[in-house]
């Protein structure tokens, strides 16, 4: 997957740098903000490890071995931005120290292996692992698929970069100047090699290391998984904690919703349905007689705290209107709080009896 110098036109290489340099700058800024002065030693060690991971021979099922890039693993463990820097530095070593991958083609190699690969892998890993707990086998499977897909997409990028060369750069006789294969040929060749062998190796590296860290070094796995419960029990407790009804929150939410909806009342025309006084009924609907029951009970209760949303004395109409609104909201909130409280007490008692029954069964 390391493209050597000579396969790509200098123009393509320049385009690679145009993409790679801003991403590297953004990655440095992001990582710098997150880990402050510690980023130099941390990233240095990571880069060294990344270089060594490329050296590891991954035993694959056909009896041979293959190498991975390790970018998917580092993206899973420390985030895609750290992986961008670590893989770029490792690629720099390979280009300048060992002649693997070109110097002019460095930008393009960074785009493929240090940008596309970790971001695709990390996105897929997050998607597949979802909210699974930290020691879940689902995370191992997600790691494998992330590495496999990340490397395959990176290989597709290499295929495209090589494949556009003959149609863009050829001499007067039609002889290609750089990589001679067109898109259909180069993409097929790159994808065949990576779908069958190299992608598997990258996936294996990510999966087996995640599995090992689940067994042996959870703190390292927790670095990039903050707040994710460690095992199934903790996940269940976390889920229960989230699902449990908190009366204060429910009451607050109900009040907030009503406050937000208040302007609707101002927009609505007319008066509220069914709240007319007997006199208004007479005027509006032209009723000649008012039903006896209505007449009897309309004036039944007169001892209100705020008659017509004002003080009983009728003074300070604006202030009293506001006070009545606040008091009303508070009372509604209190009622919702009490109802929620009742519900939680009831459900808690139910679940605790269920637990007691379960432990009873276990004991017997």
């Amino acid at each position, binding site marked *: 997957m390391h493209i050597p110098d000579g396969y790509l036109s200098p123009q393509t290489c320049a385009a690679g740098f145009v993409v790679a340099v801003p991403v590297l700058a953004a990655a440095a800024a992001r990582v710098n903000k997150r880990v402050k002065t510690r980023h130099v030693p941390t990233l240095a060690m990571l880069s060294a490890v990344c270089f060594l991971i490329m050296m590891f021979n991954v035993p694959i099922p056909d009896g041979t071995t293959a190498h991975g890039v390790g970018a998917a693993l580092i993206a899973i463990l420390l985030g895609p931005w750290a992986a961008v820097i670590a893989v770029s530095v490792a690629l720099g070593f390979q280009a300048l120290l060992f002649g693997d991958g070109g110097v002019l083609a460095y930008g393009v190699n960074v785009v493929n292996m240090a940008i596309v690969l970790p971001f695709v892998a990390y996105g897929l890993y997050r998607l597949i692992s979802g909210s699974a707990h930290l020691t879940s086998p689902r995370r191992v499977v997600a790691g494998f698929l992330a590495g496999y897909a990340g490397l395959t997409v990176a290989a597709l990028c290499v295929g495209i970069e090589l494949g556009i060369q003959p149609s863009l750069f050829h001499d007067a*006789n039609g002889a290609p100047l750089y990589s001679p294969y067109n898109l259909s040929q180069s993409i097929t060749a790159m994808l065949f090699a990576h779908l069958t062998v190299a992608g598997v190796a990258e996936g294996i590296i990510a999966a087996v290391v995640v599995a090992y860290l689940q067994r042996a070094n959870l703190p390292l796995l927790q670095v990039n998984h903050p707040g994710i419960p460690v095992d199934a029990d903790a996940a269940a407790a976390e889920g229960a904690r989230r699902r449990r009804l908190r009366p204060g929150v429910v009451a607050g939410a109900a009040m907030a919703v009503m406050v937000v909806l208040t302007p609707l009342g101002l927009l609505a025309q007319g008066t509220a349905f069914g709240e007319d006084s007997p006199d208004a009924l007479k005027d509006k609907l032209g009723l000649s007689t008012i039903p006896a029951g209505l007449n009897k009970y309309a004036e039944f209760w007169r001892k209100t705290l705020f008659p017509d949303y004002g003080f009983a004395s009728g003074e300070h109409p604006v202030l009293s209107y506001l006070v009545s609104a606040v008091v009303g909201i508070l009372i509604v909130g209190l009622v919702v709080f009490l109802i929620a409280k009742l519900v939680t007490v009831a459900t808690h008692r139910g679940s605790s009896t269920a637990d007691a029954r379960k432990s009873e069964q276990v004991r017997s």
Partner: protein
Amino acid sequence: MIGSPASVASPGSHPPSVPQWLLQQDVALCPCGCIGKRKKGSYLAKTIQGGAKLLQQVMFGEDVAAARGVLQRIDPRVKLMSLIGLLVVAGLSHSMITLAVMYAATLGLAAASALPIAFFIKRVWLFVPIFTGIVVLPATLSVVTPGDIVVTLWHWHGTPEGITQQGLLAAGRLVARVAVSISLVVLLTLTTPWIRLLAALRSLGVPRIFILIIGMAYRYLFLLLTSVTDMYQARQARTPGTPRHDRRARAFLGASVGTLLGKANQLSEEVHQAMTARGYRGDAKSLEQPRFHPADAYYLGSVVIFAAVMMIGDHLLGR
């Protein structure tokens, strides 16, 4: 090992510090293993060999960089700039003659810089046929590169198919360009100590943070490599016969990479504490201020003239 290559190298007879068995190496192939020969063999032995090969290349490079030669005397910044310039010239040239002249020039420079010529040629021409040669062979056929057929190999519905002139030219050009590019990079990396190469990168505008990371990564690469080799040698010592490539082998791989990551993580904590204790606050200053010498100006001038002649010659030879 990294710090004092100069003290062990004596002029004239080299490489003194590299054991002979380490020098029996094969060529640098794409390390991601996607192209090239797929050899069967124990993953344990291969990884240990890989580590030894890495050390060998580094030690060999330090030896050559400490020798007395033309390129060793030139300022790394000048070398780096001229490398990039010449790579672009090689990338832009269309004529095989231009590329051949450039290759001859790299051979001359290698000889003048006390590089072992046999190694230099082998490094390029073993790599090119294996990687590039096999890759471009099908490109000579009319199926890939249509054009004027030189050698007819078969007929397809009455149309002759075979090796085309355009295909041959394209393949030859690609092989030559790859050979020139690799030679140029090898010339720079073998004649420049890594630390000075880093300083050159810094003066060419690579941000200091990256230089710090690269420098420290290089420093600890060998420490971490030692622990990898230790783990693999211990595993090989307690594995009778040929290790199987099964589930347990992959679990071992996971354990060794995971342990390596844990070690690196702990090491970075300790190194950071040590740095902070010595007053590190996120910025670094370098003591060495490299200066230009007249030799650097001569070299730069001749590279510019050479590059210009190559470009003009390439234009005159026709596109």
